[in-house]
């Protein structure tokens, strides 16, 4: 029995050192040497391109209506028969109708991470009337901007067709000459 315990402790210490410390640290070194931007979280002066932000008002394209809390991520977990979910959705639908927008499902439902950086192309297209009204940019120009910022499925195979909201809004800011 003592032999077994001694073996267990020795092996645990070896694993802690090599798998727990050496392996991740070597990967930190390699990752920062080969992919320095991604290894640090794709941070730009405007935020991480991978982490969604809370866009409000009528001058910017909105992303998913996720809560404005970037630390504790995770979905709302509201079930399909939840009254809270129904009421939240009704409020969001009313908001969009007031802006003259006929919302898609992504614009009124929260995501799984609560920091979803993307929306579908259609979710961007339906927002054009709102953006045109508040910025005066012609719908055709906005449509071109959205198409230019659409990507996916990745490599033609993986995932859905998406628009990155931060990239789209930076394109919008450039159009306005900001």
């Amino acid at each position, binding site marked *: 029995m003592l032999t077994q315990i001694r073996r267990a402790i020795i092996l645990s210490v070896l694993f802690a050192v090599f798998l727990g410390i050496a392996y991740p640290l070597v990967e930190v070194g390699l990752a920062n040497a080969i992919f320095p931007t991604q*290894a640090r979280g794709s941070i730009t002066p405007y935020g991480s391109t991978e982490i969604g932000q809370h866009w409000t008002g009528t001058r910017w394209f909105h992303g998913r209506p996720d809560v404005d809390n970037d630390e504790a991520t995770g979905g709302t977990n509201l079930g399909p028969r939840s009254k809270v979910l129904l009421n939240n959705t009704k409020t969001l639908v009313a908001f969009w109708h007031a802006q003259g927008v006929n919302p898609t499902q992504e614009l009124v439902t929260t995501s799984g991470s609560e920091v979803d950086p993307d929306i579908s192309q259609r979710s961007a297209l339906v927002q054009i009337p709102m953006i045109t009204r508040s910025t005066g940019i012609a719908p055709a120009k906005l449509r071109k901007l959205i198409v230019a910022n659409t990507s996916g499925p990745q490599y033609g195979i993986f995932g859905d067709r998406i628009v990155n909201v931060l990239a789209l809004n930076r394109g919008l800011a450039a159009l306005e000459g900001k």
Partner: protein
Amino acid sequence: MAFVIEVALLVVVLGLIWRYLGAYLVAVYEGHLHFLDWIERPVLRLLGIQRDAEQSWKRYLRSLLVFSVVSLVITYLLLALQGHLPLNPEHLPGVTPALAFNTAVSFVTNTNWQNYSGGVTMSYLSQMVALAVQNFVSASVGVAVAIAVIRGFARKRSGTLGNFWIDTLRGIIYVLLPVSIVMTLVFVWQGAPQTLLGPAHIHNVLNGVHQTILRGPVASQEVIKQLGTNGGGFFNANSAHPFENPTGFTNFLQIVLLLSVPVALTYTFGKMVGNVREGVAVLMAMIILFAGTFAFSLAAEKGGNPAIRAAGITSTRGNMVGKESRFGVDNSVLFNIASTQTSTGSVNSSADSYTPIGGMGMLAGMMYDEISPGGIGSGMYTMLIFAVLTVFIGGLMVGRTPEYVKKKIQRTEIIWASVGVLVMPITVLVFTAITVAIPAGRAAILNHGPHGFSEILYAFTSMGNNNGSAFAGLSSNTAYFNIVGAIVMLIGRFGIIIPVLALAGSLAAKEEVPVSAGTFLTATPMFTGLLVGVILLVGALNFFPAVALGPIAEAVLHGRFF
């Protein structure tokens, strides 16, 4: 269309993995490979183990239990003391005793049930040394048990099943670590962070948003989380978080990783017992159960969310509540089904927000005992228990002495197999019943009505099967759930490992019976069909009443199943 190509590609890639990783595993565990002797030899010398040392099933089991207890203690101490340890850039305090106990049990048993929010509870040191190390270790222990059980079928008149220490070490250095080293860089390339810099503070001048962006050594933990069918995310959102699962491509890779070893082990099994077709018969049963459950859940999720429909949104996309835009409904369902049919339990979309029948698909995968293809190692050994039961039931029907891969199945085997199959459902149902009966249990529910019952049923099914996914609305970071949950996870892990090793020990000692005209052939579609039947029957008899009170009642309430 893209999704159809993706699924076809998944099948091709897994086919190659099945053939080549399966054969590689044979070589690893039969000791045919020597290119890592320079690591293996000094470690074994340090442990005082001869390279050809063998253990009886009892010694194998004792080593496993001692090693698990020591792992548990070390993990607990690291978590409880993290406030005093380095690599803690967010200055997080030590984890409270009940939560540290629950988490240590959870990671040592390969469950990865998480009663904490990763990014804001665990220091980098805890993530790396306490949790990610157990991701490797618990996975390798699982494969070691599967290999020992396969040896039980393969060996004749043998008193031993291999050596626990050697098997566990080889699984890590020959399989888990090399794959992780390479795949981590692929994940970083796609956008998963791998840094010790601590949180980034952002101020976007366009919209005035301030953000604190949590990061860390995510990629290195992400790969082993999937490969080792662990499932414990670096962040609370798990594989829905863009840092854990940045793109459609990483989503595909995560699915491949978590299915790879469980699928490959069926080839390893066939090869080691001398007939690859025995492995194919078992693999086909896994594929049938997987495909059926996936189709079932996908159909339900495509049907959309009743609350969203009631709010006036009609969409052809299906239910997007709690799902990420970059994955959409198809890839979310495929991921969550793959993760619940293996004992991974990571999620890329909120399980709690699935439609009743969509969520029931995830529950079902766990309720038929995590065998399609199941957790790393655990799927294989649990499936072999069902195979033994199937030949027994088949033998009863036609009045023959049952045999499986040339071994006579007798009283001892059936007793251990029955114990192995019954421990999980009894544990799950008894603890679910107790929990819904007491206020401390009911208080944790987020969504009331049948869905609330489903949250608790799902929690105990997940913990009892060492899965770790959750209907996460349940507030389970309480003393009750931490302690009771830990007990359920321990029973779910060792309550199957103990009988299955006993079964293997009994089989290893037996003589081989020659195939005769009276032998019920098991490398056949007929056997696959019977096996699927037995699994579904056992699952339905155990769980139908409980499922009727949860997801089915909920679906009936709003009058729509799909």
